[in-house]
Structure formats: structure tokens, C-alpha cells
């Protein structure tokens, strides 16, 4: 399954890019398993995604929990807790 990934703030800085398109294995079906798989891709990924409790996610621009499905998603974003306003 092909997915566009977006990263923001310190997640983006640690990974070293704000966007990448990946081909994920079939057993990657949730945000949590996506993160598990991503950490194996590079030291930057491993470092950025180490502390799961500090990561938030959106699937096709809708905020979701880590147990949310990504099956059929076009775009998944991973980022820190938001600090706007």
C-alpha cells in the first residue's frame, strides 16, 4: 500500500524531511503499526518517533488516535502535540 507521509515541527526536523511517499507492507494497518515500521527505516526516523506518547497523527487530515486504521488512506501525518493560538 502506497501512502503519502507528512511530518511537522520537531518530528520533521529529526526525520530530515517534511514529506515522503512510502510503500508499506500489508501488515501495517494502523497508525501504531505504521510508526513501528517507520522506526526501522533510518536513525532519523528512530530518533524522531522514539517517544510514542509525544506523537499525534492525522489520517487524511482528520485527527485520530494511534489505534486508528490507515487502510485505504492517501495521507498520514505525524506530529507533536499542537501549540497554536
Amino acid at each position: 500500500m502506497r501512502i503519502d507521509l507528512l511530518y511537522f515541527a520537531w518530528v520533521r526536523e529529526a526525520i530530515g524531511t517534511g514529506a515522503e511517499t512510502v510503500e508499506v507492507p500489508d501488515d501495517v494497518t494502523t497508525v501504531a503499526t505504521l510508526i513501528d515500521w517507520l522506526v526501522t527505516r533510518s536513525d532519523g526516523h528512530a530518533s524522531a518517533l522514539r517517544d510514542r506518547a509525544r506523537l499525534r497523527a492525522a489520517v487524511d487530515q482528520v485527527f485520530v488516535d494511534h489505534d486508528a486504521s490507515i487502510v485505504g488512506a492517501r495521507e498520514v501525518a505525524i506530529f507533536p502535540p499542537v501549540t497554536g493560538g
Partner: protein
Amino acid sequence: MIRVVVQSEPIDIAAEHAAAEQADAGAVASFTGLVRGDDGVTELALEHYPGATERALTKLCEQAVARWSLAGATVVHRVGPMVPGDRVVFVATTARHRGAALEACAFLIDRLKTGAPFWKREQRGAAATWVEARDSDAAAAERWR
């Protein structure tokens, strides 16, 4: 009438407030957040998630309009680099009566703080740090549930 804008230009309060005013609704409440310069911050950079940000802000405005029967809701949020004193965000709510306008304005800024994908990076001279989310903001957002 809902107006949501994410922009890198300075926020024009006069134009935004005038647009929020309606002669058949007597009350306009607003909130403006400024870059604070009293703790050594020399620059504040705002990053956001284009598309998702506007969606999240529009949804919050729709919720406020429905809950308080507003005549209008406005959120203008600046992104990119800013300096102390600059306006980061302007929220305005328009209603027939002041109670609804004031409450809805507080709702919008409280929920925006935890529910819209913006991230602040503070620069103090050469040192940059990403601002950490605050528990008090989560609590403020939670009181509207």
C-alpha cells in the same frame, strides 16, 4: 457567516473587525493573541498543516455557530516568522447578545489551542526551541465538552 484565514501577512484588526460586525446582531467579542517578548524571545515561527488547519478551524467555527446561534465566527491565524508584539491570532464572534458572543469567543480560542495543527518555534538569539503543549491548555479545551 464563517471566515477562516491562515496567512503569513500581518493581521488587519480594523478590516477583520469591520467584516465581523453586522447591523442585525448587536454584539461582537474578540480575542487577539500577541507574540510575547518578555521572556527573551526574539522571534516566533509558526508552522502549520496546510489544508488540515483550515478544515479544523472551519469545523470549530461551525460548532460555535451552532451551539451559540452566532451570526458569525472569524478566525485569522498568522503563520511564518513573527517578532514580539505581532498578532498571532484573531478570533471574533458575532451574536445578538453579549453572553453568547463572549462565551463562543472563549470556546474558539480554547479549542483552537489544542485542536488546530499549528506548532510554535521560539528563537532566543541563536537558540531555537519548539514550544511544548501545556496541560492547562488541554484543561481549558476540555471544559467545553
